[in-house]
């Protein structure tokens, strides 16, 4: 703390409090024994966590969100990695246009995007289907992955790939054994960011779900428009814990990642 002055410390502390306060409130509310939202809770009870189990439509919605997140993040990664390699290291006509195109979901208002997706999916009879949702989410989250992968591609030393090539590696082998492992931090980070973005996406998704493909955020949104019981708080708490756990897991896996990839050549 000697290098950072007291103001810097105060700023950091306020920032942390500001960021975590809503989460703490939600988690506090979820522990209430009462039937309404109160904070601080008047007692401690797991009543509203048990209530989750009695609402299978929330659990179904959570499974759909999970599958959707995994499918769309993976699809977007498969698109974004080659795109980042092309955009990040080649000069070709239309390069800027391509980048702007991939990044456009960030600039178009989400509500406009939702309506556009709705029209688009209806055209192909995919409205409300899981496939349709996956496609739309993949488009929506691609910019997040592209940015991270692009950052790691730009920092890549090309002579390392040349070295692999001169040792006899084909283009695909160079990609699989050298390029991909080196940009892996960006790819993994981008996948996680994309997954989380998909997992809690509401504005676009509301337009394109049907009752059989309702995602968790949409289900929660529908719930709070009707009642204000602490069930939303307990579900949110579970989601928060799940996200934190995911981050922790990725951290561990990512630490092991080098070893895993490096160990392959033995």
């Amino acid at each position, binding site marked *: 703390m000697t290098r950072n002055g007291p103001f810097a410390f105060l700023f950091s502390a306020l920032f942390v409090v500001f960021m975590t306060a809503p989460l703490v409130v939600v988690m506090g509310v979820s522990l209430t024994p009462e039937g309404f939202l109160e904070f601080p809770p008047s007692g401690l009870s797991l009543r509203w966590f048990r209530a989750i189990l009695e609402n299978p439509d929330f659990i179904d919605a959570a499974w759909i969100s999970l599958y959707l997140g995994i499918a769309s993040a993976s699809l977007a990664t498969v698109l974004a990695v080659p795109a980042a390699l092309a955009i990040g290291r080649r000069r070709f006509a239309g390069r800027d246009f391509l980048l702007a195109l991939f990044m456009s979901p960030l600039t178009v208002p989400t509500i406009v995007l939702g309506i556009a997706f709705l029209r688009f999916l209806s055209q192909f009879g995919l409205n409300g289907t899981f496939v349709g949702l996956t496609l739309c989410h993949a488009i929506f989250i691609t910019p997040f992955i592209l940015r991270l992968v692009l950052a790691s591609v730009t920092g890549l030393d090309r002579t390392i790939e040349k070295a692999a090539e001169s*040792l006899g590696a084909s283009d695909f082998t160079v990609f699989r054994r050298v390029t991909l*492992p*080196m940009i892996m931090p960006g790819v993994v980070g981008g996948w996680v960011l994309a997954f989380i973005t998909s997992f809690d996406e509401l504005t676009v998704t509301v337009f394109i779900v049907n009752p059989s493909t309702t995602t968790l955020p949409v289900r929660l949104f529908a719930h709070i428009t009707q009642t204000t019981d602490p069930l939303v708080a307990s579900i949110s708490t579970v989601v928060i814990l799940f996200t934190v756990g995911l981050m922790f897991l990725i951290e561990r896996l990512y630490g092991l990642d080098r070893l895993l990839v490096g160990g392959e050549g033995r």
Partner: protein
Amino acid sequence: MAFLELTGLTKRFGEVTAVEDFDLTVERGEFVSLLGPSGCGKTTTLQMIAGFEQPTAGSITLEGRDLVAVKARNRGIGIVFQSYALFPHMTVAQNVAFGLEMRKVAPAERQRRVEQALALVHLEALAGRYPRAMSGGQRQRVALARALVIEPEILLLDEPLSNLDAKLREEMQLELRGIQQRMGVTTILVTHDQTEAMALSDRVAVMHRGRLVQVADPLQAYENPLTDFVSSFLGKTNRLEGRVLERQSGGCRVAVGETTFEAPPPPDEAAAGGGRVIVSIRPEKVEFRPAGAGLVEGRAAARIFLGDHWLYQVETPLGVLLVIRQNAGPAEVETGGSVGLAWDPAQVRLLPYEAQA
């Protein structure tokens, strides 16, 4: 038939001509250095041999086979880059094994050859380390082992030692030369460090603005440079602009300003230029005489002690001349003292006139 033959090799990047009409033959087992200032096209030449740049014109043949049409990965060439270019996510052993894996060498044989290569560069103990946990010199050795383990036809080194500190560089130079001779691998080294080129190579190829100026063994290039550029680039020299006064049997008389002295015969180009020549006298060829007894007279303006030798700056009518003397006992001349300078006329070099670069 020569082993590696570059003929009329030319590379243009749009308007820029990086390499022009480059001819060089390299014999099997030879160590050749490409030497020249920054931007003269050394790396571009190396990249064309390696297959990473396509020549605009000219040919590259290896034992008579055309190399230009062969993909980089099939050329069987080992490269060591200035930045080492190790695979950061692989251990030292995995780095070295990579080229053998690509060649589908059986695991047992692979292991044996990796160990052998690591022993060659004294890194057996670090086989399990990752490159990020190693020093610059150690990484350089890994890069060398990785290039050598595939038993390349040609070893290409692009300024491999320039990131090392002076002492380590000297050590690595000796080691590199030793390994190269033991393995007998044909080697081309790119460097802008003339001492490195002279210390390591059988022949140096001096480049200037994309062109090859002179190819010769280091002693020959140093003692008998063909041009002003080579003479100034290889080591220190006293460069003077002079005029040929008259030819004599076995030499000539030249004038630099008011001073005249004897020199070997002038280059053919001198006649066309009205007798204008560049006079080059190496500092270590200049000797001190008592004041009044030299070819020129001067005053020792400065004296720098460099361990095994002294470097003097002597003010003379010719300009400031550098003189290098061995440190064999006390200094011969004090700063500020008057002194005569002399040299053996046979050690003077007359070169075609060029305006100072």
